[in-house]
């Protein structure tokens, strides 16, 4: 419970030392402001990266490989036996996912997801005497558009044109620049089996990722099967889920059922995601350091006030103010510094975020955006405020408690 007279005394103490009050408030507000700005950048880029990861690639990919080599029957028979087999030759196995059409249907039905069978392979695209190695994806264009953001990345032509053009191919801007390929040009595509097919450029995309833009091309699944000489074979099933956060769970479920190696987007991008954890740890330790420095400012001003006001404290106590009232008076000062610092800090933070948002960058590569990705979320303001208030109250507590332990007799006797 706050007594109005205690609030009045606390405010009087603060307003009578405006410069010191201002300095300690500035400490807090800069801490809060920088936290908001840095956090907006960190969270913004994290969000941006995650969105790019989630949207630009399937959430779950089933591959035609296995995590563990198959166990020899001998070892199955004697699980505990001290056995060793020498000269085992791996079986020549036709790669590919068995009955991919059935599996696609089953996944779509069971998980309410979009699934698409894909055949991948390496080809060489040759045009005007230059050639480049490209990994092609044989896809179903209708599904691919739903699975990834490829349609948004198209700068010329579209994916649907693959269906209407015979031997159509969609390439990235990187490849189109390197080989000076334009929409409508006919390029030679050389497959590993030696087959050469003249394919027509029906679309050009820019994913904002150099690797993809220079090294990936899309064709129809059936064209890929012809190129690779793998009729009726797909080597990946790519799945987009209604909820990307379910990816790990569903991937492990599918892997258990069919034993094909099945990767979630989190597994594929594990190193990226663990980077975020480290970044956040850095962010919060820096902000904590700023707030600790700011709270020293508050501690300093309130300690000084308590030292200088010992007589006033003594007289208030002799009048009948309790230790509780005295503690409250000084805690209120810390709280007020925290609140004012917080509000100013919000303004500083908002200003910084807007200033950062107005900066234009000319960046090539992964960040294709010309502006910093910023998260203008409200919760950073809340966390910043919590930091400020906790720091202020903790810093004020020690001198406030000391003030409440003043023994009026000692001071009044000393003054007389």
């Amino acid at each position, binding site marked *: 419970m706050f*007594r*109005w*007279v205690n609030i*009045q*005394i606390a405010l*009087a*103490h603060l*307003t*009578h030392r405006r410069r010191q009050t201002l300095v300690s408030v500035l400490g807090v507000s800069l801490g809060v402001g920088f936290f908001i700005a840095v956090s907006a950048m960190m969270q913004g880029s994290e969000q941006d990266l995650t969105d790019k990861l989630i949207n630009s690639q399937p959430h779950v990919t089933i591959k035609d490989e296995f995590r563990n080599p198959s166990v020899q029957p001998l070892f199955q028979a004697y699980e505990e036996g001290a056995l060793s087999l020498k000269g085992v030759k791996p079986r020549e196995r036709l790669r590919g996912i068995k009955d991919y059409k059935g599996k696609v249907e089953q996944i779509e039905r069971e998980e309410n997801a979009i699934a698409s069978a894909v055949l991948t392979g390496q080809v060489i695209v040759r045009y005007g005497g230059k050639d480049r190695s490209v990994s092609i994806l044989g896809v179903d264009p209708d599904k691919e558009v739903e699975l990834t953001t490829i349609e948004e990345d198209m700068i010329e032509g579209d994916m649907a044109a693959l269906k209407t053009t015979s031997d159509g191919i969609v390439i990235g801007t990187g490849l189109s620049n390197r080989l000076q390929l334009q929409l409508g040009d006919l390029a030679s595509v050389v497959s590993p089996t030696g087959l050469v097919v003249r394919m027509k450029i029906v679309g050009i995309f820019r994913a904002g990722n150099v690797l993809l833009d220079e090294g990936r091309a899309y064709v129809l699944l059936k064209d890929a099967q012809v190129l690779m000489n793998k009729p009726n074979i797909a080597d990946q099933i790519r799945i987009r889920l209604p909820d990307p956060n379910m990816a790990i769970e569903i991937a492990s479920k599918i892997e258990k059922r069919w034993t094909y190696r099945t990767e979630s987007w989190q597994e594929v991008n594990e190193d990226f995601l663990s980077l975020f954890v480290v970044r956040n740890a850095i962010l919060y330790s820096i902000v904590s350091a700023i707030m600790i420095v700011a709270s020293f400012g508050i501690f300093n001003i309130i300690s000084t006030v308590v030292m200088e006001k010992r*007589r*006033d404290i*003594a*007289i*208030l*106590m*002799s*009048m*009948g*103010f*309790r*230790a*509780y*009232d005295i503690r409250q008076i000084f805690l209120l000062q810390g709280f007020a510094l925290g609140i004012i610092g917080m509000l100013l800090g919000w303004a500083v933070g908002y200003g910084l975020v807007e200033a950062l948002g107005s900066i234009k960058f000319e960046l090539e590569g992964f960040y294709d955006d010309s502006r910093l990705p910023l998260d203008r979320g409200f919760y950073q303001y809340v966390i910043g405020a919590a930091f400020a208030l906790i720091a202020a109250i903790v810093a004020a507590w020690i001198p406030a408690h000391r003030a409440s332990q003043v023994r*009026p*007799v000692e001071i*009044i*006797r000393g*003054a*007389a």
Partner: protein
Amino acid sequence: MSGEAPRVVLETENVTRILPLTVPVTLVHGINFSVTAGEFVSITGPSGSGKSSLLYLLGLLDAPTEGRVIVEGQDTSLLDRDALAQFRLAHLGFVFQFHFLLPEFTILDNVTIPIKRLGALSEKEAKDRGMQLLEDLEIGDQALKHPDQLSGGQRQRVAIARALGNAPTLILADEPTGNLDTKNSDIVCDIFVRLAKEQGTTIIAVTHDVDFAEAADRNVHLVDGAIARDGAYQRP
């Protein structure tokens, strides 16, 4: 005074205060006396005789090592720190040698702080009462100034007004004229006499000031922490 026995406001029973230092120091010992309503008592004695120590014990700012202080029938040794604070707020008023006014506040605010802390009156009523007290002490025109704009005598009158805020039954004063010139000492002395006579406020004042001690109804003279004489004042 009428025939019936006057009401006892303050009573001490064998009050002793020893500072627990490595060599214990006895400040006062075996103090027995009582004060009735409307009495103006001066406490005198040589330096170091325990006058101020006794006043702090009577004012419940310090607790006796032995014995009891009974104020308004309340045995104060039974009260904890917060209850003592509340008791001081409601029943006691202090005037010290130094005015101890809060420099950040106006004269009127200084007077109303204890009234507001007690919380029996509204903000407006507290202000009116503070103003009334200042006018009674003829410093109403200074109400909106700050303490550093007033003379020493005026400040001491403000301190008295502040002590009177919650209409205490007992005023405790520690050398209230110690820092004042003769003229201002006389004014303060007259105020105390008037308070005792007209409003029945009990006053206990520690003093070195001969005229002030003489103006009181009764004098308690301390020597070496014990009462040497209790009665009419005798000039040294």
